């Protein structure tokens, strides 16, 4: 029951994050480089879920991301990329004790690098409307999102929405 509640709350939080990330545009001076909160939550949710179902979270999260945040992108690209990233993230459950700062940072950073690589590969294919961005833009947006990862992780731990060390403790 507890696991179902956590999963349900995580799903709700992901939906809210999708919607929230659009409100910050006019309030922040660096609006071109907003942190991708939804991506961070999907990574942690897939680590929480474990290897059996993490790829489903990536697959469904990819379509959700396309519907709410990417009006100009090709359907299925984010589903493909997130399925792979979340499958790999799901393998991480229970392997390491996750400290509050460094490991959330590393997981999200690695996931963002993989996302950038896949998007670059897709952008090389003709007729797919994937924008290529400059290297500096990619570095800045990755850095900002990565720095938000420990904050989001600790907020979720505070509200008992996530416990990535659960399996090790048991």
């Amino acid at each position, binding site marked *: 029951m507890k696991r179902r509640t956590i999963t349900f709350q995580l799903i709700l939080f992901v939906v809210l994050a999708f919607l929230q990330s659009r409100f910050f*545009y006019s309030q922040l001076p660096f*609006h071109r480089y907003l942190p991708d909160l939804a991506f961070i939550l999907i990574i942690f949710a897939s680590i929480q879920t474990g290897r*059996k179902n993490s790829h489903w979270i990536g697959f469904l999260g990819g379509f959700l991301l396309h519907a709410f945040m*990417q*009006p100009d992108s090709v359907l299925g690209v984010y*589903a*493909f990329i997130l399925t792979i990233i979340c499958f790999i993230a799901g393998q991480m459950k229970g392997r390491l004790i996750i400290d509050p700062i460094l490991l959330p940072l590393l997981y999200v950073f690695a996931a963002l690098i993989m996302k950038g690589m896949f998007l670059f590969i897709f952008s090389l294919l003709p007729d797919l409307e994937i924008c290529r961005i400059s290297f500096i833009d990619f570095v800045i947006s990755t850095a900002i999102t990565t720095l938000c990862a420990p904050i989001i992780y600790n907020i979720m731990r505070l509200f008992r929405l996530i416990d990535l060390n659960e399996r090790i403790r048991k």
Partner: protein
Amino acid sequence: MQGKVRDWLKKRQVILQFSLLLLISLIIVFVSRPFYRNEMTGAGFYITTLFDRAASESGEKVEVIGDQLLSRKQMKKKIQLLEEKVESLEQLIASSADKDNRVFLNNKNNADLNLINQNEDYLSFNAVSADIMARNPDPFSDSLIISAGSYKNIKNNQAVVAVTDNQVALVGRIVLVTPWSASIRPIYHSRSSIGSRLKKERYEGILKGQGDPSRPLDLSYLNKNAQKILNSGDVVITSGLSSIYPAGIDIGRISTIKRNILGPVLDLEVIPLVNFDKLETVYVLTEKSE
């Protein structure tokens, strides 16, 4: 035999599910057509822009209510002063010999709309003003969201302009519309391709974005003879040949002429006239109804 197959499938259930999901998403990528894509993104876009609009309008309302609560007494005094001024102005107008005198309000929107409507290139269009209320946060898919939609007669593939330094300049085109909002693909988008020409010299070329508003646009396929007569700073305008963008809209100025001795065509770099980081209000060119 069936038991063995079942056991084999059960052991590899996770890998098989993973492979199946990858295959489905890849098929969707290569089979998806704009119609299916737009239906799904249109639904999500419709819902999220409701929240965008609610947030931006309620933010304004809260600010107004806060001002009114804090300065109630001052407002009363100001209203009294204003009433006296209005009375004296009315007396002045009534006694004025010129009955066509008008009181001009300092309204930038009115001045901008006048500038657009007076230009003979846009006589067959209406200019619908809209504020930019959101920008897609993912740098991989840049678009601007405006606070006007199909209820103001905005449709897909309509050109969008802005007024900068008393000049009308191209911003992009509409790619997605809901009743109350629309999404603009800006001219610097990496998939943006505009038929353009040099304003003075009239040579034609194709203008492409680089995916970044701070990087110049690429003007390619120009006749090589143009390099003898064009200069840095020359204005580039839309050619009107693509039937999306009307002819004659200023896009940018030439910044660099790439001298290519061996190639058959000329390539230029063009800096857009619009500063996308400061952009607040745009004007969508809608067709005038008969």
